[in-house]
């Protein structure tokens, strides 16, 4: 695929991000985006590695700062297509202020958030989206606080586009991202994902694959994907 540099990603075998990377490259191709006109900007974390594998203008920013950098790029090059790809820890914890204000300003960006409910790159700490009660490395007795829901957060902004999709639901994923990329204002796609290594629920399950399959099925029903 011409949108990728062809370097082997460093993600764990079986990580949904591999699939996400190839699918996004496919969507860029389908929309016929010009590489010199396309900017992929990411923050820090497993998903933050994304920018390193695209063969267009890419920027790998510091933790949480992908959105302001992307807005700066968009101001400098108004014709460019600017896509932010990052994780839940990056966008919804340290970068939450920037996310809300970019939505308030309706900045013409597309933000794709891979939500795996955990800080995976640093080894399994609590993220703002970790469900209450789940045990993590920093909450050994179970997470004490309810998770942050991006849908609820962004509901108040009427002019933006918010979409949710699920990993491995390729058709749904592609249509949602396509919709977001062709939207003229601020668009946010939450991709429900998982981490099979750092999610202790999965790791400690008798059959991790079955636990993941169960999780994906449950999410599919929740998101009403047919």
């Amino acid at each position: 695929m011409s949108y990728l540099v062809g370097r082997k990603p460093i993600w764990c075998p079986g990580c949904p991000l591999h699939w996400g990377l190839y699918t996004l490259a496919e969507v860029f191709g389908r929309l016929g985006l010009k590489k010199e006109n396309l900017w992929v900007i990411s923050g820090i974390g497993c998903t933050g590695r994304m920018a390193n594998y695209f063969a267009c203008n890419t920027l790998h920013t510091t933790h949480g700062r992908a959105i302001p950098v992307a807005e700066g790029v968009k101001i400098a090059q108004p014709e460019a297509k600017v896509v932010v790809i990052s994780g839940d820890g990056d966008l919804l914890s340290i970068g939450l202020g920037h996310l809300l204000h970019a939505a308030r300003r309706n900045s013409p960006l597309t933000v794709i958030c891979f939500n795996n409910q955990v800080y995976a790159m640093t080894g399994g700490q609590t993220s703002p989206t970790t469900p209450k009660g789940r045990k993590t490395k920093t909450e050994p007795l179970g997470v004490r606080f309810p998770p942050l829901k991006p849908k609820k957060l962004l509901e108040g902004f009427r002019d933006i586009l918010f979409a949710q999709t699920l990993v491995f639901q390729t058709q749904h994923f592609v249509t949602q991202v396509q919709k977001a990329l062709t939207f003229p204002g601020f668009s946010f796609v939450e991709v429900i994902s998982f981490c099979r290594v750092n999610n202790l629920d999965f790791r400690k399950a008798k059959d991790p694959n079955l636990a993941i399959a169960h999780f994906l099925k449950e999410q599919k029903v929740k998101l009403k994907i047919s």
Partner: protein
Amino acid sequence: MVFWSGSQAVVEGALKKGARFFAGYPITPATPIMEKWAQKAAGDQRLKFLQAEDEIAALHLVTGAAVAGLPSFTATSGPGFSLMVEGLSLGFVWEAPVVLIQVQRSGPSTGLPTRAAQGEILQTRFGPHGDVLFPVFYPTSVEEIYFYTQVCFHLAWRFKTPTILLLDAYLSLMKETFEPSRFKFGGKIKVNNKTLIKKTGLINRVEVGRKIEKIKKGMEEFAAKTNPWHLWGDPKTSVLLVATGFLARALCCFANEWSVFVPLQIWPPLEKEIKKVAKTKEKILVVEANEGQLGLVIASILGPQRVEVVSWREEVVDLEKLKSLIVKRLK
């Protein structure tokens, strides 16, 4: 002739060099720069302006824009600068030509926002994480602010690095008369619609080290060409006073008694020049509105035994008090 405040001189200097984008966050005493730019941007479609949600966003906005080819700058003061140093290291690694105006105010934390001090001289060098070096200038008058704003833009784009213009509350708020056409530096920066980064940036210690070396060498050449310092007063006196910013302006009044050296380029320090000036001096006093930051720099060049620091702790500059403070040290 114009009658401009320091803040206006910053904006006019930036426009002279072709600046197109400013993002900032209100903070006294740097706010007038943002307001002046906002007024300019309201009347000119090519000029962009954004009031960011915080200083971190402000610096990252201009960094992103600069990397995408648009001449951009931001302005802040003490606490805001502490937030911005996060992005400065990123700007260094990306080789982003960002210009940052740092208007120093008094005191840590909230402090005294309407009073001047010089508490961030070392922070501009050692504040950011990792090992970085930016060209830093500290002018002493409105005409010099106009000139060195242009210099900052010029060097940022020439060396492909963030540059910092240090000011203080008094300099940025005071108004002076001068002739702008006499203070031009270099041509306009062209807007470049391609990404400036050819690869991932400076990714290892070798590349970072080389970049710092390159900046040091370039700045040496720049200093040799433009003489970014003042030497006021009788060069034969045995006493040398070293000062910057608003205190340099005050010490100018004592130039008939002592010689006063004012480095306008703070980082990298003017080693050769300082050594040359201090050669015949018996007593070297660094007068500054902090507890010895520039003094540390001068001491690292001349040796700690030769340098003494006179700390100015008052809010308003009182010449008699300042003089008695110096005289006391000379006894």
